[in-house]
């Protein structure tokens, strides 16, 4: 009797958006606390640990991704308003951008082109499937935009979403080391490189390092979304991929 009751309760919870949403926030809070305890080590980036915890939980509880997403979509939805919100730090950094608009523009075009061409190039070289190659092409562009590009060029949008997240984590983890190796100290340059390569996750990391780096990273992420949406399909057409 008690078992039957528990099972009804479980059936309700597993199908209700409440579980997916609560689990997402709980996992992130735990992951964030762990990250802070570890002195903000990028390998313990809260996205990595939260995603690992959630996948583990869903597999154990035998809940499929779609049921989970019914709840998690409320968090996912905020990616749109957050993209719009980038206008605020961008506006606050305008005086700096006015001085740097030429370098920022050229670096953005170069970065977006190299990002798309090199991911397709390496994927071909290492023998990935065509659909994987296409899904990799917009990997440096922020998730909602990258998914749109992926769909447009014939990739798998949800695979792209995952590749975008992994790229963001790699960028956030490797960025500081790469900048040290290349002896780059200027926060505006680091921010632009971070935002072009590692979009929102890189930008989140950049904001932890300095507000200026974060603002430039946010700017670069916005610019890469804009240029990526136009340039990536064009570039792939030109390379004869689509």
């Amino acid at each position: 009797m008690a078992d039957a009751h528990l099972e009804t309760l479980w059936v309700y919870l597993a199908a209700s958006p409440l579980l997916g949403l609560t689990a997402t926030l709980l996992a992130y809070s735990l992951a964030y606390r762990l990250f802070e305890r570890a002195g903000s080590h990028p390998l313990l980036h809260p996205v990595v640990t939260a995603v690992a915890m959630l996948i583990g939980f869903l597999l154990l509880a035998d809940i499929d991704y779609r049921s989970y997403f019914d709840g998690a979509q409320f968090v996912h939805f905020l990616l749109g308003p957050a993209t719009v919100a980038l206008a605020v730090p961008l506006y606050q950094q305008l005086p700096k951008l006015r001085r740097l608009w030429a370098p920022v523009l050229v670096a953005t075009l170069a970065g977006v082109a190299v990002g798309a061409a090199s991911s397709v190039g390496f994927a071909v070289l290492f023998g990935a499937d065509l659909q994987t190659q296409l899904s990799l092409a917009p990997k440096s562009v922020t998730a909602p935009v990258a998914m749109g590009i992926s769909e447009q060029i014939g990739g798998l949008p949800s695979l792209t979403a995952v590749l975008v997240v992994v790229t963001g984590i790699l960028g956030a983890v490797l960025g500081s080391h790469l900048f040290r190796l290349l002896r780059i100290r200027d926060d505006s340059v680091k921010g632009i490189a971070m935002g072009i390569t590692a979009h929102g996750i890189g930008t989140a990391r950049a904001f932890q390092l300095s507000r200026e780096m974060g603002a430039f990273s946010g700017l670069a992420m916005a610019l890469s979304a804009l240029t990526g949406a136009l340039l990536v399909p064009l570039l792939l057409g030109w390379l004869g991929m689509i």
Partner: protein
Amino acid sequence: MPLIYGMTVLLVYQLVGEVGVRALGLAVPGPVAGMLLLLLTLAARRGVPDGLDRIAHGLLGHLSLLFVPAGVGLMVYFERIGAEWLPILLTLVLSTLLTMAVTALVMLGVVRLVRAHGDNDG
């Protein structure tokens, strides 16, 4: 109230952006168009209202959280990723490093060019 006002501004600009790009048939994503419109508005009124500033920093301060649901989507692609994990991982690592290095070096190069040019002018 200021937070509600701020969130409403963000949603209105996103909505205008989404409707605008569809109406005009542009290839730009709706939220990106909304961001540009909001940037123009802020520049025109020369300042960020308090509520908008707070909600923007709140959202951007925990941007990582918003990527979690998409990241969990990894579980749908276990099979494809299992079969192709090595090419995918190599591609992601190498392309990420290359993109970051090229972007940073190109920007540094142009900064120096502009500065040298400015010095000549001066």
